């Protein structure tokens, strides 16, 4: 398998852990380069969920029988695994239904503490999931939204921060990594600027979490969210981390079982975090799967894995440059970026590029990537996006390049 020789990263052995990568679909292996939408999942995750389903399935927290004890232990064990992955304490981790659900939790709960005229600062490259919840909050409560513009090379333009921040700015919520351009946020600058005005900082880590463990306390931020399914875990699970004093101050969002202190008809008291925010039966199986995914990620050598990913980005960029009429949208180099690469091909619509690639067995995403404001800003119909995981290899990139050349030749 190609790629095994790069930086001593053994991509073949990683690939073997992902059952779907050895599937033959319609007579062809899969070149899966749509990891930014949803990553594939390793056997370790599938097995962890299956073990729960077949040897320890029960509801959590309230049962005294041994299946319930096993389930509770696995569920809370997953919380510990996720906490370790983020460098934080287990009780600061709230399990949600997804990354979008986590952002909505903050927008509803933390948002309810804001006052009309308070301001929230986003950027023009945010995913809809980090825009629409705030627009809904604006409708509910009269907060104002400000938007950081994006530079020509697809980065959040932090030079404009001094102008945009006001004493009324309570929260800055930005993508840690852009799901369109792959640009990595300069978190340090954002946190420093936020401190000037006393604003909290939330990072949308959906595209960062799939690339290895984090040290959130070192970042100095207040909120972090990510999605299980993009981080090699199951669907139906996401994570909110917040500083404990913030969680403590936040009112509940969903009401239901497990998030209460005591329920009477007249009034109800709340459980401490994280339970306060985990109303009803939580996504136990998906959480256990995500715990296994975090453990799996923690077991990789990310220095080598990241070097491998970025070598693939280089190969991709070099290859695209040989096709007439391709334009990269995003940072030109490998500096401060992650392996998400968007491009356009003159005269060929991104969907037609992606569809042609599919015929070569290559899975990519095309369109607005749930970032319509960004597309509007650059007057783009969309882009074709290649998003890379550690299990990708040279053959994936080469198949893609062949497909792009074919599209360029036949569709314009």
């Amino acid at each position: 398998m190609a790629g095994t020789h790069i930086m001593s990263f053994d991509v073949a052995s990683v690939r073997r852990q992902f059952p779907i990568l050895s599937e033959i679909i319609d007579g062809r292996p899969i070149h899966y380069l749509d990891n930014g939408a949803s990553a594939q999942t390793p056997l370790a995750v599938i097995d962890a969920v299956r073990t729960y389903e077949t040897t320890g399935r029960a509801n959590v927290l309230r049962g005294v029988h041994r299946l319930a004890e096993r389930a509770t232990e696995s569920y809370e064990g997953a919380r510990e695994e996720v906490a370790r992955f983020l460098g934080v304490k287990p009780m600061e981790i709230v399990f949600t239904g997804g990354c979008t659900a986590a952002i909505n939790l903050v927008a509803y709960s933390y948002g309810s503490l804001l006052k009309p005229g308070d301001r929230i600062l986003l950027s023009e490259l945010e995913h809809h999931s980090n825009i629409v919840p705030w627009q809904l909050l604006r409708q509910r409560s009269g907060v104002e939204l400000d938007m950081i513009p994006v530079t020509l090379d697809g980065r959040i333009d932090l030079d404009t921060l001094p102008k945009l921040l006001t004493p009324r700015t309570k929260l800055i919520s930005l993508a840690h990594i852009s799901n369109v351009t792959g640009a990595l946020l300069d978190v340090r600058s954002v946190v420093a600027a936020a401190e000037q005005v006393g604003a909290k900082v939330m990072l949308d880590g959906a595209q960062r979490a799939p690339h290895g463990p984090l040290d959130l306390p070192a970042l100095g931020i207040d909120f972090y969210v990510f999605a299980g399914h993009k981080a090699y875990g199951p669907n139906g699970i996401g994570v909110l981390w917040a500083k404990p004093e913030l969680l403590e101050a936040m009112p509940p969002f969903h009401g239901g079982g497990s998030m209460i202190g005591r329920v009477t008809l007249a009034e109800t008291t709340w459980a401490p975090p994280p339970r306060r925010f985990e109303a009803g039966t939580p996504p136990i199986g998906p959480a256990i799967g995500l715990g296994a995914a975090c453990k799996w990620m923690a077991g990789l050598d990310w220095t080598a894995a990241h070097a491998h990913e970025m070598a693939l980005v280089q190969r991709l960029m070099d290859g695209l440059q040989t096709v007439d009429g391709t334009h990269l949208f995003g940072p030109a180099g490998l500096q401060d970026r992650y392996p998400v690469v968007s491009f356009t091909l003159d005269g060929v619509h991104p969907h037609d590029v992606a569809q042609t690639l599919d015929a070569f067995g290559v899975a990519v995403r095309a369109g607005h990537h749930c970032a319509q404001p960004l597309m509007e800003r650059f007057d783009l119909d969309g882009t074709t996006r290649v998003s890379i995981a550690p299990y990708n290899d040279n053959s994936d990139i080469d198949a893609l390049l062949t497909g792009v050349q074919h599209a360029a030749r036949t569709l314009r």
Partner: protein
Amino acid sequence: MSDQLYQERIVTLAKSKTGAGKLATPTKSARRDNPLCGDRVTIDVRLDGQERIAEIAHQVRGCLLCQASAAALASVAVGRDKSGIAEIRHDAERALGREAGEAGEPFAAFAPVKDHKSRQECVLLPFEALQDALA
């Protein structure tokens, strides 16, 4: 390689750009977006005294399938009214396998899209826009 989707007829239709552009004095126009993929079609029509299409033009910001469909539609729309357009939509729906029966020309060209459910809306979007304009 089996990109049977982009068969020559579809590519040719798209490149023909039949009806591409704007009308100077449209009687009606309508724009339709596909929120999932971002395709956008604007259609202008000029109607005669019997509510029949006398002239048609389309601006497509979308994929080849959408462009091809808009061109195909423009090539057969003139002289038809609302119900005439509904009739040729059946051809498109048949070509996509959403309705039983054989698709008439030029929409028979879209038969390869039958197996690509996620792209079928691209073919139908120009109809949505035109039918909005005529509604």
